[in-house]
């Protein structure tokens, strides 16, 4: 009972919401383990023993140590650098009413993000991870849009790139976009 209460109290705190909103950066796992990483892993294991509130406490520590948060500072350099206008800044807090939100969310996909950060199209990762097409592909009334795995030589998209006349926008900038235009005939 008391544990549930503590958990509920912590879940309502602003910094906890902040942590849940900001996915952790796991790049450190690829490098040689540092002392901080080992300590973190031990503490994480410990938190499983004593339960949920410990995770919250660790998260608070994480905020104090200022480590696992993503460093999106909202300078908008990436927007100035993007030749395709693909990036969008959250000039204000997201205002979509709760009843209009898609409850099927993905942490890297369609969840509402805080104001003051830049985001872009995720190709509907919450759908593609479940084996479905992105919404824009599914809804297109004439089937003009194709989506697929470029690494699979047998996929529809690979066949199109092989057999059709294909171009990308602003190819001279060498950004090598994976957004292709092809002629249907």
């Amino acid at each position, binding site marked *: 009972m008391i544990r549930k209460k503590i958990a509920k109290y912590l879940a309502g705190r602003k910094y906890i919401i902040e942590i849940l909103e900001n996915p952790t950066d796991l790049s450190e796992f690829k490098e040689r383990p540092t002392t901080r990483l080992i300590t973190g892993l031990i503490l994480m294991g410990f938190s499983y023993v004593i339960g949920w509130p410990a995770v919250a406490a660790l998260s608070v520590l994480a905020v104090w140590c200022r480590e696992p*948060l993503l460093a*999106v500072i909202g300078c908008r350099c990436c927007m100035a650098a993007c030749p395709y206008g693909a990036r969008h*800044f959250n000039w204000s807090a997201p205002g979509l009413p709760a009843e209009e939100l898609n409850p099927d969310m993905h942490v890297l996909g369609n969840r509402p993000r805080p104001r003051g950060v830049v985001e872009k199209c995720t190709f509907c990762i919450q759908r593609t991870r479940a084996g479905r097409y992105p919404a824009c592909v599914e809804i297109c009334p004439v089937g003009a849009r194709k989506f697929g795995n470029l690494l699979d030589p047998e996929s529809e998209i690979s066949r199109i790139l092989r057999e059709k006349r294909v171009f990308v926008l602003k190819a001279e900038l060498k950004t090598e976009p994976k957004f292709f235009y092809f002629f249907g005939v």
Partner: protein
Amino acid sequence: MGPMQFLRISAQFLLRGGRTYWAWVGLLVALMIWGGVAYLDQLRTGLIVTNMRDQVSWAFYIGNFTFLVGVAAAAVVLVIPAYIYQWKPIKEVALLGEILAISAIVMCLLFVTVDMGRPDRFWHLIPGVGRMNFPSSVLAWDVLVLNLYLVLNVVIVVHLLYCGMQGRHYNQSLVVPLVLFSIPAAVGIHTVTAFIYAGLAARPYWNSAILAPRFLCSAFCSGPAIMLILFQILQRTTRIAIRDAAIWKIAELMAYAMFLNLFLLGAEIFKEYYSATEHLVHLQYLFAGVEGHRALVPYAWAFVACGTMAFLLFLIPATRRNVVTLNLGCLLIYTSVYIEKGMGLVIPAFTPDTLGEIYEYTPTLHELRIGNAIFAVGFLIFTLLCKIAIPIMTGEFAAAATTTRGFAAPTGRKEEA
């Protein structure tokens, strides 16, 4: 005389001033409060209170930042003749140039901070503490050189003031290397700032090799223009003596810089208009308007006209030695470079945007208020530092120290010049 007495006498000088001084400080504080309230509003509701949108994602704040980096870099116009050529008339006032550089850098850092969407994460820009994307991000380089230049100038100014207060000569082996290092650092802050823009292949308006040289040339006009006007105000309101020779020499250097600035601008205009590729559209938006969108056109011609007139005024020795035409020229240069390196640099690059959409940007009242407040902070820093520095430079400080402590302090810093 220890640091405590230095602070105490400094405080005495800060608190002693006529009605004009207090009215001036009061006005600055009022502007800071007015803009501070606007900034709180922006913190609460987000950058939506500005007129920046996805099409024009950098605007008024970043334009002012760019202009002020130039003002800060211009301290070298005084430092080079003073410390490399040991030219006495300018060496007497080089300290004021360094104080201006400090004020300008603080304003730059404030403009970057108010432009950030997540100012709560600013510490990621502190080397060693946050996750700065060094060395691949040019912005990270810029933050680094700006802070380095700020620290350099603060160390130099504090050391000079402290030694001047004690009436002894400054430490040659400390100041000279630092001052010499501040020259490439000043060039560096403006070059790196230009590289932030010039490195973006997505924005053809900026993607030009002569952007950094253009930045430096305009900086060596605008910074000294502010300095000359401030010098004359200080000459009338304080006991400081600034020789006419120093002012004329600075005006002469400005004429050369303005010539190069106009020449490089002309080179850019020729290249765009003669080749007339798709990339011309941004310059067309600035000088002629595109599809009836002409918001920047009057400003564009104003900066060309002001720049040319000022160049002529500073080129002719008779007009750069006349007080009226000199000040007129300074105002014209200030206007010209403020438009060119501010809105004239940032807005056309985003209009039309990468997909051809035209969004006409004009700053909101919130942006103007916040901008005003930041300028007020800069002017306040300059005023307060001058209030301490000028008595030291004229020897009044040492006199005050003698009367308070009762020991004979030698006269101020003027001796060593």
